[in-house]
C-alpha cells in the first residue's frame, strides 16, 4: 500500500460479512426471506433445442406465416419509437400490418436511443481479425457475466450483420475508410474491431434511419403515429393483451386503443435513480403497468453504472451527462491522499500527495479496469471523504481524470485531436478548461439490463404482449458490453420481432372487444382514478422533490454496491416515502390540458413500486455479478464473487398486489455452447 496514513479498506458494510468470502453460501440462507414468495420455476417454452447455430433458422421456419391479404386486418400497437420501436413499426408497416405507434415526445425522432455515442457491434469480420458470430456471442455472454440466455444472445450476434446492411441501405452515414468501405473500431475492451460508428453520434444516426423508415410508412398509411401520447394502462382481456389506455398529453383526453397485439418498446428505467444519463421523460410506466397486469419483471436490480460522467454541480442538477469511456485510455484517475487537499486547486497538489488509486489497486489494468470496478472504486474514495469538486449536500462526489501526463507525452494537439469534442463538451457544461485543469468525473446510472421477462419470441408472460429493446431483459445478462444496446434494439425491431410476432398473429384477428368490455372499463377507470387522485391531494411537496429523494435512496443503497442491511433499510425508506407521496404530493392544474407535473406524478408513483422491487431483487441475489455488486459476496481482494451454483438463474418477479410480497419465479440458465468462467482484472 502506497499510503499508510489512510485506511484503504472497503467500508465497514463490506468487510463485516466474512462468511461470504468462502465463495459458497449456506444453501438455506435467504436474505430476501420475508420480502417475497417463492413461485414455480419458469421455463421458456419457445426456446428451441438443437445446435445453437441452427436455432434461429429453425424458429423462423417453424413460426407460422400470415397471408399478405390478411395482414391489413391485424392490428398492432407499439409503444415507444426508439430504435426498437421505430424499427419494428417500420418493418411491420412494410409487411402490411395495421400499426399504431405511440411516443410521449413531440416527435418519434426524440427517443433517447438518439443519445448513444459509441457505436454498434456487428460480426462482419471486415478486419479479418478473427471475429465471427460465435465470437460476438461468446463476448456478449461473457460480458453479461453468464446471466443471459444463450439462445437469445446467439441470435443477436447472428442478425447483427443484417443490421449494418439495412442501415447502410437507408443512408446511415457510418464512418468510412479512404477506400470507401466501412470503418470499424475496437470498443469496450474487446480484442476485435467490430464496432461500426458515426463519429460520436451513432445512436442519433441509427435512430434517424429508423425514424425515416417509420415516417415513410406513416406517409404510406400503414402506421398511425400518436405523438405526445403516454401509455398509462395495459388492457388484458380474456387472458390476452388487447390494447392500451393512453392519455393525449396535450388535450388530456384518456383514450382507448384496441388491437390484436401490443408491443412495448418503451426503454429502460434508469430514471428510478432520479439522476441518470437517461432523458428527462424516460420512465417505467408502460412496462410497470404491464407488470401489474401479469407480465413478470426480470432481474430488475441489474443496472449499469458508467464511470465517466460529468459530476453533479449542485442540488438543482436534473440529469447527468456521459462522456465516452475512451477518455480512460489516456487520462489518469486520482484523488488527493489527504482530505485537507480536497478543496485545493488540483494543480497545486504535489505528485506525492496524489493517490492514483486504480493504478495502485489494479496494477495490470490500471485506469482501464471494467466499468463496474472503476465506478465502485470512485464511490469508495468519495465515501472516504477524499472526493473533489463542489460539495453537494455535504459530500464532494468527483475524482480527477488528469490529462497533464498525456499532454506532456503526446502534445496538446494530439490530445485535442483524439478527445477535442469531449473536452469541448466538458468545458461547456462545467465552465472549466480540461486542457489546463484536470477533469472531474463521477459514475452515473446509464442503462438497465433488467426489464420485462420475455421468452425466445420476445413475448412476455401475458399472451399478446411483446417487449423489445431495453424494456426487456433478454440479451445482456448482468452487464452490457459497449456498443451492444444499439445492436439489440435494432435486432429486436428489424429482424426478430417481425418473425416471432407472426406466429402469434397467425391465430388472429381475435374476437373484437368493445369499449364496454369489463377489462377496458377497469383499465380506464384505474387511469382516471389515479389522475383524479394526484390532482386532488393538494399537499405540500412537488413531484420532483419526491423523485429526487427516491433517487437518493436508490443510489445510496441499490447503486454501485448493495448490502443486506442497506437494501432492507432502503425498502423501509421507499415504503415510507411512497406513503407520504400519496398523501402529500402537490400537483397543480387540470387533467384537461398539458400538465407536466401530472405526467411526472404518474411516473414517479410507478418508480416507487419498481424501486422497491429492485431492492428485493438485489437482496435475493446474494452474489456479485456484472453490474450488481453485493458487499457480502467478494473475494479476499475485494473483487466481485459470482455464485454460479446458486444464482445461475433469471429472477422473474410476479406482481402480487400493492404491499403484497412479489412472487419469484426462477428460470434456470443452461449453457450448452459456452463454459462459465470467473473474470479477473488484477
Amino acid at each position, binding site marked *: 500500500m502506497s499510503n499508510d496514513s489512510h485506511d484503504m479498506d472497503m467500508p465497514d458494510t463490506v468487510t463485516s460479512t466474512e462468511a461470504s468470502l468462502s465463495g459458497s453460501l449456506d444453501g438455506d440462507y435467504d436474505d430476501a426471506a420475508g420480502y417475497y414468495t417463492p413461485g414455480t420455476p419458469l421455463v421458456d417454452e419457445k426456446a428451441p433445442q438443437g445446435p445453437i447455430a441452427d436455432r434461429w433458422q429453425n424458429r423462423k421456419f417453424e413460426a407460422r406465416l400470415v397471408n399478405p391479404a390478411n395482414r391489413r386486418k391485424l392490428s398492432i400497437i407499439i409503444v415507444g419509437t426508439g430504435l426498437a420501436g421505430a424499427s419494428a413499426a417500420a*418493418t411491420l408497416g412494410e409487411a402490411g400490418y395495421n400499426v399504431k405507434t405511440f411516443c410521449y415526445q413531440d416527435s418519434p425522432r426524440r427517443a*433517447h436511443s438518439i443519445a448513444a455515442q459509441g457505436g454498434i457491434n456487428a460480426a462482419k469480420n471486415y478486419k479479418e481479425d478473427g471475429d465471427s458470430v460465435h465470437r460476438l456471442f461468446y463476448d456478449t455472454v461473457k460480458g453479461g457475466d453468464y446471466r443471459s440466455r444463450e439462445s437469445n444472445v446467439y441470435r443477436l450476434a447472428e442478425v447483427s450483420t*443484417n443490421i449494418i446492411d439495412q442501415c447502410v441501405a437507408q443512408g446511415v452515414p457510418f464512418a*468510412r475508410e*479512404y477506400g470507401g468501405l466501412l470503418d470499424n473500431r475496437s470498443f469496450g475492451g474487446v480484442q476485435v474491431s467490430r464496432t461500426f460508428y458515426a463519429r460520436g453520434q451513432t445512436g*442519433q444516426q441509427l435512430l434517424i434511419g429508423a*425514424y425515416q423508415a417509420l415516417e415513410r410508412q406513416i406517409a404510406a398509411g400503414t402506421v398511425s*403515429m400518436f405523438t405526445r401520447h403516454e401509455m398509462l394502462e395495459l388492457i388484458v382481456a380474456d387472458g390476452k393483451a388487447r390494447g392500451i389506455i393512453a392519455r393525449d398529453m396535450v388535450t388530456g383526453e384518456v383514450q382507448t386503443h384496441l388491437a390484436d397485439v401490443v408491443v412495448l418498446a418503451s426503454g429502460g428505467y434508469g430514471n428510478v435513480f432520479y439522476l441518470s444519463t437517461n432523458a428527462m421523460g424516460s420512465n417505467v410506466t408502460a412496462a410497470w403497468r404491464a407488470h401489474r397486469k401479469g407480465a413478470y419483471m426480470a432481474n430488475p436490480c441489474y443496472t449499469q453504472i458508467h464511470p465517466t460522467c460529468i459530476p453533479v454541480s449542485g442540488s438543482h442538477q436534473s440529469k447527468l451527462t456521459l462522456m465516452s469511456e475512451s477518455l480512460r485510455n489516456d487520462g489518469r484517475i486520482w484523488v488527493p491522499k489527504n482530505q485537507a487537499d480536497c478543496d485545493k486547486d488540483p494543480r497545486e497538489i504535489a505528485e506525492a500527495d496524489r493517490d492514483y488509486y486504480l493504478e495502485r489497486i489494479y496494477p495490470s489494468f490500471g485506469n482501464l479496469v471494467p466499468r463496474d470496478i472503476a465506478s465502485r472504486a470512485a464511490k469508495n474514495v468519495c465515501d472516504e471523504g477524499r472526493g473533489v469538486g463542489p460539495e453537494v449536500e455535504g459530500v464532494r462526489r468527483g475524482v480527477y481524470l488528469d490529462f497533464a501526463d498525456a499532454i506532456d507525452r503526446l502534445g496538446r494537439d494530439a490530445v485535442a485531436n483524439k478527445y477535442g469534442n469531449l473536452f469541448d463538451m466538458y468545458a461547456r457544461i462545467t465552465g472549466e478548461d480540461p486542457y489546463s485543469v484536470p477533469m472531474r468525473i463521477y459514475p452515473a446510472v446509464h442503462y438497465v439490463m433488467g426489464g420485462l421477462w420475455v421468452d425466445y419470441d420476445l413475448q412476455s408472460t401475458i399472451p399478446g404482449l411483446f417487449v423489445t429493446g431495453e424494456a426487456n431483459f433478454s440479451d445482456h445478462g448482468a452487464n452490457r458490453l459497449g456498443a451492444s444496446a444499439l445492436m439489440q434494439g435494432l435486432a429486436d425491431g428489424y429482424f426478430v420481432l417481425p418473425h416471432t410476432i407472426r406466429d402469434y398473429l397467425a391465430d388472429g384477428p381475435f374476437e373484437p372487444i368493445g369499449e364496454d368490455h369489463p377489462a377496458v372499463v377497469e383499465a380506464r377507470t384505474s387511469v382516471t382514478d389515479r389522475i383524479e387522485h394526484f390532482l386532488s391531494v393538494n399537499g405540500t411537496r412537488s413531484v*420532483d422533490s419526491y423523485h429526487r429523494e427516491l433517487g437518493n435512496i436508490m443510489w445510496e443503497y441499490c447503486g454501485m454496491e448493495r448490502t443486506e442491511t442497506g437494501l432492507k433499510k432502503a425498502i423501509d425508506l421507499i415504503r415510507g416515502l411512497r406513503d407520504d407521496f400519496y398523501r402529500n404530493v402537490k400537483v397543480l392544474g387540470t387533467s384537461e390540458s398539458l400538465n407536466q*407535473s401530472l405526467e411526472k406524478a404518474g411516473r414517479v408513483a410507478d418508480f416507487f413500486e419498481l424501486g422497491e422491487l429492485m431492492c428485493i431483487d438485489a437482496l435475493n441475489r446474494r452474489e456479485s455479478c456484472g453490474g450488481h455488486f453485493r458487499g457480502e459476496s467478494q473475494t479476499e481482494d475485494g473483487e466481485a464473487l459470482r455464485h454460479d451454483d446458486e444464482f445461475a438463474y433469471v429472477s422473474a418477479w410476479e406482481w402480487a398486489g400493492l404491499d403484497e410480497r412479489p412472487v419469484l419465479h426462477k428460470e434456470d440458465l443452461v449453457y450448452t455452447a459456452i463454459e462459465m468462467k470467473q473474470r479477473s482484472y488484477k
Partner: protein
Amino acid sequence: MNLTLKIWRQPDAVSAGAMHTYQLADVSPDMSFLEMLDVLNEQLNEQGEDPIAFDSDCREGICGMCGLMINGDAHGPEVTTTCQLHMRSFSDGETITIEPWRSDAFPVVKDLVVDRGAFDRIIQAGGYVSVNTGSAPEAHSVPVPKDDADRAFNVATCIGCGACVAACPNGSASLFMGAKVTHLGLLPQGQPERDERVVNMVAQHDHEGFGGCTNIGACTAACPKEIPLDVISQLNKDLRTAIKHGH
C-alpha cells in the same frame, strides 16, 4: 445570481398569451438554463401557480426537443441547444426575455411548448430511402467516397429542433430541409429518389406555411449543430435539376 425573467405564458393553443415577469434569486452559474427554469417551477409550484410548460428530454443537446427564444436569439447567446446553455453566460441582475419559437407552422401548445409536427410531415414527404427491411444488399457492395460520407454525416447531425425556423426572418425551414436533401443526395443510396424527394419535400414545406428563403443566414448562425448554408445551395440546385428533369 438574481434574475428578472420575462416569460411568455399561454394556457393552451386557442387562448391568448402574454408576457409575465418573475423574479428568481440565488441562481447558480453552474445551472443549465433549463435547470434554472426547473427551480423557477419549484418556486411557482410552492406558490400555487401553474408551473411553466417547456419541452426538454435528453438534456444533452442531441434529441432536439428543447428550444427557446432567449433574449431574441434562438437557443440563447451561445451556439448550442437551450439545455446545454448555462447560466454563466448571463450576468447578475440581468433581465432575460424567454419566448417560444414563433412560426405559424409551429403553433404554440402551451406556454413555451410548440408543435413541430410539420417537420415530421416534411420527412414523410420524402426524407428517406425506400428500402424495406431485409431487402438490403451487403453493406460493402457499394463503396462511398470518404469525403462524401463525411459530408453526409456532417449535415445528418441536424437534430430537428426548429431553431433555424425560429431565427429566420422569413420563417423558412430551408436549412432543415436542405440538411436532409444534402445528406441523402450525397450517398449512392439516395440517388434513385433524388428528384422526387426534393420536389415533394419542398412542396410539403410550402404547404405547411413556412416562408421562402432569402439567404440571410440567421438559420445557420442559430443552428446548434452548425449546419452550413451549403445545404440550402444544394437544396436549390437539386430542385433546379428536378425542374430540368421535368418534375
